[in-house]
């Protein structure tokens, strides 16, 4: 057997280029392009009275100014509502440029096109917009009270109300020996990739072709939107994703106004045009996530077994619902984690506020769900005086109960059925890794030194690899080089490495000979996108199928050439050989030559495929049903998602005087099925944990009551530095393969961030002995919480 690359720590082929500064991002392309700058609303809620562009028209270097009035045809309609849902009864989306009303600070009102961004900004500042301010709705409490409405025609500010249940949770709670109620809050944060949004468009007047380079997580989605909104034939639109400086979800949202306006302007002016978002714009006009208020009622028995669980939550979706209600649906379903409550009911309302839109950010609603569930588990353990791991263990779905059907509908519209997992084994590994049973000894030692320490754990199950499908194309060139394309995009995950590992193994070629292209609609026009931890599962599987098809064809052609049975052949390092007969070989490149009957020889190698050299003169050169070329396509479309899982534990120390929160240890046990590349999976975990630490202890969107974002810069939005993230993250893996795909893999992209808010709340609560019900938490908030706690008993949690 050949050396297997899948499962090995193959170092990333991307890194050399990116670390040397040789990456090419959208802003690096076409330096001569015109720039656009947007005029953005300074008001959270206002009617537009007048837009005066007079003072701009004589600015040197300004080519054009656009307002809503200038938008033609479909571009003048509201932007698409990407994922409609029956429960989303009052979905609303914004216009590419605001029409009559603005609903958040940062909403695009007008657009300037100039020879560079400096002049475009100068001109944007000279555009005078008069507004008639309306009362803003900021925060979930105000949205619920509905004293003012974000949209006049949306009563109660309720975009959607959705209810799901299995069993009769209310009766189960009523009949349970013990009951608890929790009120919980979680604040807004955002993906904040280092590279903001960026779009470059070039219109070829002669051929009527639009070519767009954009920093997106879905080039096919952007392409379809541009074709529809600009009334172009899809075939005449190419969308290419160059290097992307991070996405983390915000770039799966599309089309952003600029995604459409930039190609529109490029066509109108006949010149290349780009929009490069700046940092402040990103904070006030790209999506946020996380903000929820939750109310949990739970009934349980003496062992802590949950008999009934009823959850109500309110989700802040911002001013519009372009991405539907995916985030709260995920919260409401993934909240269940590895547990099987006797009965479960969940109701959520997705509410409008005069703030930036909320669309998926790494974790996509799961951190909130895990927070609700894990806070509940901790509350039960505390109430019963039991170990927190025991309470979890009695509620686990057992390995022999898998696949497990929760009786709910998941975000992909498919039943919520877990395919595989082993939660008890995962917990055992975590307890061992963190030294759960020895912690009390450590706590006593620390206490004797006047130190305060605490431990927390949190468990999650993550639906990954959602459909509908992805595809892959594998082609062997006559040089023996293998070109691979898949339609989804890359933002630094290491797809080029991982997909090449899969192809190298499946086809039997050298890793170095495989080159992978992602996110280029010219190379692969059918795709969905990179989100929901789906790239390895979806494109990985599709590419494996494509490679297998190529292998089958290669063996067929080689069998003819070598006069052997294809069953007796193997492919090793790009050479097809007869097993046990070392001399009977043919290179894959030569097989590629033979696969393509030629009239013209263009080099020595190709002579062997020309018409007087090969082929049975009585048969067509390309047999019926066959195709020229050594290439193959594959698609993977699973019946439903595959469910990865994991558990985190953290040990924190809280300073008795300054309330600073220090991370002493962070431990992760992770199960994403078969691991294609442990190095990359661990890198994903590290990055996820860093974002988890950020969301739990540092980052939030500080809106004031007027809807002004007070911390729209990296000075005040506290993305942690490397100095704030644990220098060591201890990781152990469990591998329960997925039965749903050919590689037995599950997604790993989001896992690291999912349980962090829950696990920090648990550890800080354990250190302090004060209920933690609102996250993130800063030292100042912990200090104030301590003060309030000395006056009253723990808020938020009470026995009923």
């Amino acid at each position, binding site marked *: 057997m050949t050396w297997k690359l899948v499962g090995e720590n193959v170092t990333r082929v991307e890194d050399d280029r990116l670390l040397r500064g040789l990456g090419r991002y959208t802003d690096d392309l076409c330096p001569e392009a015109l720039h656009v700058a947007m005029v953005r609303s300074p008001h959270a809620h206002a009617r537009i009275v007048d837009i005066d562009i007079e003072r701009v028209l004589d600015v040197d270097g300004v080519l054009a100014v656009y307002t809503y009035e200038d938008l033609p045809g479909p571009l003048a309609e509201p932007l698409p509502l990407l994922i409609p849902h029956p429960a989303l009864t009052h979905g609303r989306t914004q216009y590419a440029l605001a029409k009559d009303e603005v609903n958040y600070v940062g909403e695009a009102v007008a657009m300037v096109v100039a020879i560079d961004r400096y002049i475009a900004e*100068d001109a944007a500042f000279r555009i005078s917009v008069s507004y008639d301010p309306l009362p803003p709705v900021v925060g979930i409490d105000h949205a619920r009270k509905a004293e003012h409405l974000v949209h006049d025609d949306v009563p109660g500010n309720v975009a959607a109300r959705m209810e799901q249940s299995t069993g009769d949770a209310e009766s189960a709670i009523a009949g349970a020996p013990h009951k608890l109620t929790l009120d919980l809050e979680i604040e807004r944060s955002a993906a904040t990739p280092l590279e903001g949004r960026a779009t470059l468009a070039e219109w070829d007047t002669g051929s009527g072709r639009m070519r767009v380079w954009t920093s997106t997580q879905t080039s096919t989605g952007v392409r379809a939107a541009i074709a529809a909104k600009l009334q172009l034939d899809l075939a005449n639109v190419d969308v290419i994703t160059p290097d992307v400086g991070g996405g983390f979800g915000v770039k799966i949202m599309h089309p952003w106004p600029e995604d459409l306006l930039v190609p529109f302007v490029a066509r109108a002016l006949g010149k290349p045009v780009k929009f490069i978002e700046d940092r402040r714009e990103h904070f006030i006009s790209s999506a946020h996530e996380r903000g929820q208020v939750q109310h949990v009622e739970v009934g349980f028995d003496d062992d802590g077994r949950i008999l009934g669980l009823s959850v109500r939550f309110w989700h802040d979706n911002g001013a519009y619902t372009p991405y539907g209600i995916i985030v709260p649906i995920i919260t409401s379903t993934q909240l269940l984690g590895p547990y099987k409550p006797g009965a479960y009911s969940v109701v959520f309302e997705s509410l409008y506020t005069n703030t930036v839109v909320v669309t998926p950010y790494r974790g996509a609603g799961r951190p909130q769900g895990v927070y609700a569930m894990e806070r509940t588990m901790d509350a039960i353990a505390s109430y019963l005086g039991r170990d927190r791991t025991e309470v979890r263990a009695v509620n686990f779905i057992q390995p022999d109960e898998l696949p497990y059907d929760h009786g709910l509908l998941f975000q992909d519209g498919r039943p919520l059925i877990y395919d595989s997992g082993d939660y008890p084994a995962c917990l055992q590994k975590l307890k061992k890794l963190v030294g759960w049973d020895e912690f009390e000894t450590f706590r006593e030692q620390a206490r004797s030194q006047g130190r305060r320490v605490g431990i927390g754990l949190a468990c999650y199950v993550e639906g990954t690899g959602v459909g509908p499908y992805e595809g892959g194309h594998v082609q062997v060139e006559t040089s023996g080089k293998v070109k691979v394309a898949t339609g989804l995009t890359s933002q630094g995950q290491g797809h080029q490495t991982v997909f090449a590992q899969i192809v190298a193994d499946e086809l039997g070629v050298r890793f170095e000979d495989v080159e992978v292209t992602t996110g280029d609609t010219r190379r692969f026009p059918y795709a969905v996108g990179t989100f929901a931890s789906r790239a390895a599962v979806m494109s990985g599987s599709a590419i494996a199928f494509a490679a297998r098809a190529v292998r089958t064809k290669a063996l067929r052609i080689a069998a003819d050439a070598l006069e052997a049975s294809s069953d007796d052949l193997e492919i090793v390092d790009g050479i097809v050989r007869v097993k046990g007969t070392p001399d009977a070989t043919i290179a894959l490149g030569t097989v590629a030559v033979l696969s393509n009957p030629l009239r013209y020889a263009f080099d020595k190698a190709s002579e062997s495929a020309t018409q007087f050299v090969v082929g049975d003169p009585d048969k067509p050169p390309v047999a019926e049903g066959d195709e020229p070329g050594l290439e193959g396509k594959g698609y993977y479309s699973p019946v439903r998602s595959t469910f990865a899982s994991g558990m985190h534990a953290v040990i924190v120390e809280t300073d008795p005087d300054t309330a600073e929160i220090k991370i002493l240890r962070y431990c992760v046990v992770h199960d994403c099925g078969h691991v294609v590349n442990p190095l990359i999976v661990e890198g994903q975990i590290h990055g996820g944990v860093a974002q988890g630490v950020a969301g739990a202890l540092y980052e939030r969107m500080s809106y004031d009551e007027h809807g002004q974002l007070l911390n729209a810069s990296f*000075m005040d939005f506290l993305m942690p530095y490397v100095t704030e993230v644990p220098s060591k993250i201890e990781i152990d893996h469990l591998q329960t393969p997925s039965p749903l795909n050919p590689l037995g893999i599950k997604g790993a992209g989001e896992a690291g961030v999912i349980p962090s808010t829950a696990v920090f709340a648990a550890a800080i609560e354990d250190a302090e002995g004060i209920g933690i019900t609102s996250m993130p938490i800063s*030292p100042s908030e912990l200090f104030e919480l301590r003060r309030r706690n000395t006056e009253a008993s723990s808020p938020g949690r009470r026995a009923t």
Partner: protein
Amino acid sequence: MKPAPFAYLRPECLQDALEAYADHADDAKILAGGQSLIPLLSMRLAAPTMLIDINRLTELSYVHTDASGVRFGALTRHAQIEHDKRANRAQPLLRKALRSVAHPTIRNRGTTVGSIVHADAAAEMPAVLRLLEGSVTLRSHEGSREVGAEDLFVGPLETSLAAGEIATEIFMPALPAGAGVAFEEISRRRGDYALCGAAAIVQTDPGGAVTSVKTGYLSVSETPLVLDLSDAFDDGELSQTNLTGAGELASAAVQPETDIHATADYRRQLAGVLTKQVIEQAHNHASARTIGGSQ
């Protein structure tokens, strides 16, 4: 995030800079390290019509140390002072505080004089200048004058510099024998502006008794705040009781405000905690210097 248009001058000598500044004092800004000014321009929070770049005035880049103290010029970068051994033997508080100024890359470019005349009460070096009772030399095309630290800071981001004056030099007095210093701050992320920071200078007599305790603060007042806490140590002892008393005095004396990062009460608490820490550390420093005979 692109600045509004501005004219740009890069004079080759101080005299040219002073003359240009005299001509455009109302709408020009001096560009030295640019670590505060450039972000303000990029965010269009400031839109001067002219920048006078003094980075060619290399004669203003120096660290001079003698028995009286340390002098450095308008073009001296934070990192130069931080890594200057003589300067830090003469006044060890410089390095102790400079290490908390933002991040190394910012210290490589930012100038200490620029930071001080930016007069942000959340910055380290204005507080150090006040605590050490240093002074600043101001030059204009008409002449030069010396201003003591207590007269320099007149309001938030506001100094007593007159129109057309450039701060060309700062003097930080040397640490007297028998004295010790310390600096601590607490920030959300390493290198951020502090939620609260404190510096202390503790003077002991040859017998080891505490004779004077002064502390300086950042981020808890509109202008850099200095407290004389000597009365809390009137028995000359550095006892826990006295430290606690000093901490309480500091908590009561600071005037912090609530913002999105911390409440005023929390900052007050930090002022008390840090006061105790820096006084104790400064006292230890004084003792070590007395025994060791140097730093």
